Structure formats: structure tokens, C-alpha cells
């Protein structure tokens, strides 16, 4: 890339980084919301006592329960289990879905973990969340009310739910990786013309305004706009009217300066 093109490219990258950062803040909670809707749907569809999603986190390696649904699900949220342990650990490690029944009557069943959640199930199905390349977590269902076991059709349906959850997780990870994206673009565009130090300097220059405190007025506004997603149509109409007034005021103020 010729030296004189750098300022224009940098400006474009800054704009991209800015927009990505706004998008990330607008959708903060989107991952959680989507995962929650998947466990909600799982509980309803299977008429299950509980469903939860655990995601793999490092340092230390663990599977952390992020969302749960169902009458017996809430106790799981926030719990972590070792990925080398139990049915959830097996599904994560092996990449294979499995279901166990009559676990409650087996004295060797991992009761310790179950008891931490406040509910010891009779049957469990665990399906890995795989985003096409890697396993990122596990979807778990406890106790179908209508049946003591899980059928093959159940396992296949759970596989589809798990796939949707994994896709949602990868999408939000893309938004988080703004610096990684910029670095890759710069290295790709620059070839030999830009050294590693220069790449780092450009990435920092493009993103340094993005790490400002969430309390900065602009980001506060972005967060609040993001929260509007949960409103009803009528409420959104009202907010749109208010924003219209504010925007007219902002335009007039800019004109007077």
C-alpha cells in the first residue's frame, strides 16, 4: 500500500472500528438474550424440568452455566464445572451428544454438582455446542416430564438447538474481535510496506477512543438506545417522537455555532 494512501485507509478503518464498537454496545446482552431464548424454547418443547447452557471459559478451564430455564433450572446459573467431569464435561470433551436415564437411582452419579443446583434429576441429555469448527459449550436438558428417557428424535432436535446457540456465540465473538479484525486487514493490505510496529500503532490509533469509560455521555446514549430493543411498538413510537425533537434541537444548535 503506497504511503500516501495510509491516512485515507486509517480513516476508513477508524470509522469501521467505531461502527463495530457501537454495534457491539447496541447488542450487548444479545448473546445472553438469544441463549436464554434457546433454553426457554428447549424447556417448552421438551416439557422439561430444566434446561441450561454452559460455555467453556479459560483460566481456569471450566464450563460455566450462563443461562437456564424451567422450574428447576435457576440454581444452575453461575455454577462452574470442570470440563473433565460429568456428563456435561463428557459431551464437551468428546463432541458427542448423549443422554442418561435413571441417574438419580445411581449412587455414583455426580450428585455433588447436581445438589449445588438444588435439583437432582432422573435423566439428563447433554449436547455439545459446536460452531462448525470448535466446541464452545454444552446444552443440557433435565427430566422430560412425559417420558423417563430421551429419544433419538429428541437428541437430533437438541443438536439443532445447540447449533443455533453456537452460531449466536460465534457472531458475538466476531464483534468482540475488532482489534483482531483491524490487525488482519492491515497486515493483508499493507503487505511488506507496513511493519509489525506500524500495524500495532495503527490499530491503537483506530481503537483508542473505543475503550472510553462506559460512563462517557456518548456510550451512555448508545447503551440506552440498545435497551429500546425490548420495548413494544407503541413505546418505540413514543421514543422515536422524543428523539425526533432532540435531533431537531441538535441540528438547530449546530447551526447557531
Amino acid at each position, binding site marked *: 500500500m503506497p504511503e500516501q494512501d495510509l491516512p485515507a485507509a486509517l480513516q476508513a478503518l477508524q470509522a469501521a472500528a467505531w461502527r463495530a464498537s457501537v454495534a457491539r454496545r447496541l447488542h450487548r446482552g444479545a448473546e445472553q438474550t438469544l441463549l436464554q431464548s434457546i433454553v426457554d424454547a428447549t424447556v417448552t418443547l421438551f416439557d422439561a424440568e430444566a434446561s441450561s447452557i454452559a460455555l467453556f471459559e479459560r483460566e481456569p478451564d471450566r464450563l460455566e452455566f450462563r443461562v437456564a430455564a424451567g422450574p428447576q433450572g435457576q440454581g444452575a446459573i453461575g455454577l462452574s464445572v470442570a470440563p473433565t467431569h460429568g456428563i456435561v464435561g463428557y459431551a464437551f470433551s468428546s463432541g458427542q451428544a*448423549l443422554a*442418561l436415564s435413571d441417574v438419580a437411582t445411581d449412587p455414583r452419579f455426580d450428585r455433588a454438582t447436581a445438589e449445588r443446583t438444588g435439583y437432582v434429576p432422573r435423566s439428563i441429555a447433554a449436547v455439545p455446542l459446536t460452531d462448525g469448527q*470448535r466446541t464452545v459449550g454444552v446444552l443440557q436438558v433435565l427430566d422430560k416430564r412425559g417420558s423417563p428417557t430421551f429419544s433419538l428424535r429428541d437428541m437430533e432436535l437438541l*443438536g439443532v438447538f445447540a*447449533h443455533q446457540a453456537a452460531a449466536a456465540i460465534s457472531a458475538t465473538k466476531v464483534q468482540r474481535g475488532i482489534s483482531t479484525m483491524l490487525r488482519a486487514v492491515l497486515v493483508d493490505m499493507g503487505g511488506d510496506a507496513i511493519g509489525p510496529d506500524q500495524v500495532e500503532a495503527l490499530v491503537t490509533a483506530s481503537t483508542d477512543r473505543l475503550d472510553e469509560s462506559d460512563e462517557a455521555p456518548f456510550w451512555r446514549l448508545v447503551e440506552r438506545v440498545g435497551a429500546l430493543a425490548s420495548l413494544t411498538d407503541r413505546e418505540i413510537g413514543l421514543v422515536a417522537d422524543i428523539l425526533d425533537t432532540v435531533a431537531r434541537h441538535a441540528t438547530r444548535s449546530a447551526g447557531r455555532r
Partner: protein
Amino acid sequence: MVELPAWSEPFQGDDHSRLARAAALSGIDREWAWGGSTGAGITVAIVDSGIERDHPAVMGRLVESVAVEFVEGEPTVVADDGGDLFGHGTACAGIITALAPDVELVSVRVLGADLRGKGAAFLAGLEWAIKRGVQVANLSLSSKSEALYGAFHELVDLAYFRNVALVSAANNLPGNSYPSLFSSVFSVAAHSEPDPVRLYYNPSPPVEFGAWGVDVPIAWKDGGRTVATGNSFAAPHVAGLVALISARHPGLTPFELKAILAAVADNPRTQARG
């Protein structure tokens, strides 16, 4: 909506007309294939979470136990006495010994190793088993890493040319998974008929065989037992049958073993055997 992979679909329900085949190879029946066989002389590797040596279901048939550990970042096979982390390897071992009580079992623990190198540990364990010289390897696990496609392909070919039958559970999730989708592998999905020797051959691969994998009574952790569902419990049924046939007819290639399984499968036949 994502399309269901539904690898078990062809084996479900009472109507097996979609599995109809022409008459089986003449002269091959179950009596010829494995009548009187106990699996004696056959070594089966269980590439999984380890095996509990003293579990009653293992019937004292465990002859060697290794694990893949990462030494200076490299997957390394070391002797192992860690038992079974999850119970799953022991479950597979128990299904196989119930069918073929005189096989020798080799446990290759690849699960529970450093999670940064799951695929690499699986590859290293599988390579070790093939080169050690086993006749059958049960792989109730899979990798979805496209980056490992080439490495798995190479190993699967090595197994084929060394007459090692790799029996792998199909993965019921969208997308490719290895090594179950390679053509020389015995890929297995579950059916729900409670019969350990009920076997279907699927004329429309990638998944070639259907075996019992729903509500299977299995061995589990700490000497226990439970009831489980999954393709990973179907695969060891096929591994057990392959061990029985291999013991009765030593030296068969994976290709010949598959032909025998297809011939004795419970598929409906479109014409009487001649």
C-alpha cells in the same frame, strides 16, 4: 431452520423398506460369520475417556492402558492408570465384552487431556493404537476441525492398509465430523430396538450401519451402571460384532468385514436368497 442431520433416521420405526437390499451374498450368514466366536485373539482399542480395570463389565480383559498427555506442547502417549474420567470408555468396553467376552482391550485415553489440544490428542492416540497393532478400534468421539481433515485422512488410510477396522460413532450435529465420515471407517448411528445384534446396513452413506443406541444398559463410573442413549453407544455394538467375525476369520480386511456385516444385516430383502 437448520436441516436435521438425522443419521439415525433410516433405522427408525417399523418400516425398513427404504433399507431394502437385493439378496445377500450367497453362503454368508451369521452362523458362518461369527458362530461360536468369542473374539479370542482379537485386540480392540477403546479410544475414549479411559477404562476402569476392575469394573465387572470389563471382565478383566484390559491388557494395556495408555493416555495422551502434552509434554512441552507435544501430544505424547504415556502409560496410564488413571481409570475412567467420565465412565464412557468403560461403557464402550462393557458393550464389547458382552458380545465378545474373550477380546483383549487396550484403553487409549484421549479425553480429559489438555483442552487446548483435544484434536491433537485424539490423533496421537489413534495413531498409537493403529501402530501398536490392534484389529479393531472403537472411536465414540469426533472432531469437527477442518484443520485436522488431512491428518485424520492420512491416519484412516494407514488403518485401512494395516487391516485395522475403525468403528466410529456418527455425530448428530450439522456439519462434517471426523473421522466418522471417511469412507473406509465403519460409521454407526443408533437404532432403538433393544437387541445388541440387531444390525442395519444403510445403502445411502455416509453413515453405513445402524446398531442399538437408545436406552442401552451400560457400565458407568466407579463400578456403576446406568442407561444411556447416543450414537456413541451404538458404535461399540458394531465393534463387538467386527471382533467376533475377525476372530472367526483372521486376516479379513475392513472392506471384507463391511461386506460381511452388510450381508448379515437385518435389512429387508427384495428377493429371496438364492
